[in-house]
């Protein structure tokens, strides 16, 4: 047989970030190891040093244009802790709406704009067609629904925050402006269409998922821990609560963990081949402490959603597998169930008369020199932690981003898919697209995770140990 070789997929496309994948083949041409490399690094934790703490929400939002709202919220909550204030109840409710409106738009982007080409056109489809415009030709309703659902979330963000991306509305102590009757009514008027789209998209996705039974077996289908925030009653939440970690049996490994003490039980490991660190649950060490976050994890961790349509879907979701749903292919379905929950919840929150209260901001000077907070971003739990000096200037910051917490699982998933599909002797597009598609299921946000994004020519080369090119595939 042949020599040991490495296949490089560079870049991974239709994801939110700069990355590449290397597949390491043994002498028999079988995939022996695989790495998901994140290739961009930005340095927010360092360059925020010396800046006034009150700038943090708006600055940290610039970590990510897809989920700026999550960073705004986690950052503002950490700043609330620096002020040592309890924010007005209406401010909290408005932040909740803001947060889940973003979950809708971010999840819609992941499912419709990035992954639906694989699901609708197939994993082996012509790469020239595998994009939103290809979906638009084949199934115009699906593409238009995706655009409309993303727009639904973005318009709510615009109405509340004044602009769609990087709004400055969430501030330490609350939010800067109350909600007007006009804006509330305008948002409520868009709810029925969003609900209808979420419901018919779920019906389409469930039917479509059934066609991928083979992929489901290999797309990150393994036991692991799952982590997410839950409410006191165990319900799904995106804004507050305590952390619960369950294992593959669905049993809680840890409960009621205080998210502001994350450093006591969550560690981060550096891999020399990636700018993305790997988070793990310290009591279990590595590799046993690997855990997953995000939509699949949240649905495995919570006891219920708390809204009627989403709870009905959750009950059906739990029929897929006893205890915990393990295949990362189901991130897609979990994402749509969460969209449905968010739309329902937005309606509930807006129907509360208190939502129009003018008391939306607690004013205070900093009263603590250290503050930490967590929130559920679309991709999973997000931690912001700051230390300031007496003048309120940032001295130190640490962020743990959702995507880093899926890093170990993504690497393991890439290996699993590659071992199932990639044959070193005859490379084709479909094999490699599946390796990328499992990454898309996690919806990694790499601008977030390395506190950034891009593309370059995909060239897959088979290299011999001395670097000689044995085979080459260019796409398209």
């Amino acid at each position, binding site marked *: 047989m042949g020599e040991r070789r490495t296949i490089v997929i560079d870049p991974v496309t239709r994801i939110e970030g700069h990355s590449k994948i290397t597949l390491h083949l043994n002498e028999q041409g079988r995939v022996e190891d695989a790495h998901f490399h*994140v290739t961009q690094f930005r*340095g927010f934790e360092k360059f925020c040093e010396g800046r006034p703490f009150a700038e943090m929400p708006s600055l940290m939002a610039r970590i990510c244009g897809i989920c700026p709202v999550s960073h705004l919220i986690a950052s503002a909550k950490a700043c609330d802790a620096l002020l040592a204030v309890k924010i007005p109840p209406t401010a909290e409710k408005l932040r909740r709406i803001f947060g889940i409106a973003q979950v809708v738009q971010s999840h819609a982007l992941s499912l419709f704009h990035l992954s639906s*080409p694989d699901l609708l056109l197939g994993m082996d489809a012509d790469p020239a067609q595998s994009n939103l415009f290809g979906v638009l030709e084949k199934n115009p309703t699906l593409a238009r629904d995706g*655009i409309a659902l993303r727009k639904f979330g973005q318009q709510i963000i615009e109405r509340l925050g004044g602009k769609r991306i990087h709004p400055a509305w969430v501030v330490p102590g609350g939010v800067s402006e109350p909600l007007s009757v006009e804006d509330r009514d305008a948002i409520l008027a868009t709810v029925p269409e969003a609900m209808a789209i979420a419901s018919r998209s779920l019906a389409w996705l469930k039917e479509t998922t059934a066609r991928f039974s083979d992929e489901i077996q290999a797309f990150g289908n393994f036991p692991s821990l799952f982590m997410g925030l839950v409410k006191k009653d165990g319900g799904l939440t995106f804004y507050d609560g305590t952390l619960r970690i369950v294992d593959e049996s669905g049993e809680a490994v840890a409960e009621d963990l205080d998210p502001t003490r994350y450093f006591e039980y969550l560690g981060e490991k*550096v891999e020399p081949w990636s700018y993305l660190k790997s988070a793990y649950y310290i009591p279990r060490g590595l590799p046993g402490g690997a855990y997953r976050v995000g939509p699949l994890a949240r649905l495995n961790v919570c006891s219920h959603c708390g809204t009627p349509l989403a709870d009905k879907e959750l009950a059906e979701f739990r029929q897929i597998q006893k205890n915990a749903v393990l295949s990362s292919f189901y991130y897609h379905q979990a994402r749509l169930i969460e969209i449905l929950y968010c739309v329902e919840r937005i309606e509930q929150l807006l129907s509360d008369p208190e939502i129009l209260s003018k008391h939306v901001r607690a004013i205070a000077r900093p009263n603590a020199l250290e503050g930490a907070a967590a929130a559920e971003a679309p991709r999973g739990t997000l931690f912001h932690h700051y230390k300031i000096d007496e003048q309120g200037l940032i001295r130190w910051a640490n962020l743990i981003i959702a995507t880093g917490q899926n890093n170990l699982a993504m690497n393991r998933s890439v290996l699993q898919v590659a071992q199932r599909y990639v044959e070193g002797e005859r490379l084709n597009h479909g094999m490699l697209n599946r390796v990328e598609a499992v990454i898309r299921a996690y919806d990694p946000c790499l601008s977030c995770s390395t506190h950034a*994004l891009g593309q370059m020519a995909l060239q897959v080369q088979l290299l011999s140990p001395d670097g000689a090119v044995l085979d080459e595939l260019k796409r398209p």
Partner: protein
Amino acid sequence: MSKKKLATVWLDGCSGCHMSFLDMDERLIELADRVDLVYSPLVDTKEFPPDVDVTLVEGAVSSEEDLHKIQVIRGRTKLLVSLGDCAVTANVPGMRNPFPVQAVYDRAYRENVTLAPGTPDQVIPRLLPYARPVHTVVSVDIFIPGCPPSADTIYYALTEILEGRQPELSGKTRFGA
């Protein structure tokens, strides 16, 4: 009339300018009748094609890979547009410039770490000493500031460019908009 070839590229940015591009919503469908999106994070083309009419660049030039990409892209693009404050001024990515690169690495990969501290240096590109605006590295034809520029601004600028006109951006966007 044949469709113009449009490309969009992310360098060191947050993707917010690309999200603002998507915020054109249904106008994207109309745009698809007028341009071919030949290269973008949103499509599966993996190699930057030759003879691209317009390329929108988001982000600053921050790593060895960014530098290589933008040089290749400039050579294959008729009209290069710096889209957003990071491309135009280096903005947020440039905030690391007062710190030595190693100090920036150390915070993330030595201090805020519990296992195997050390600067990652295998397979991935190194950071350049400074994050720089795009026009300091290659020539840029049109500048659209904003953090990010709004979808309306992007739509206006793009339609003007496609008509062969220089977009008049004063009053439509600004730094930090």
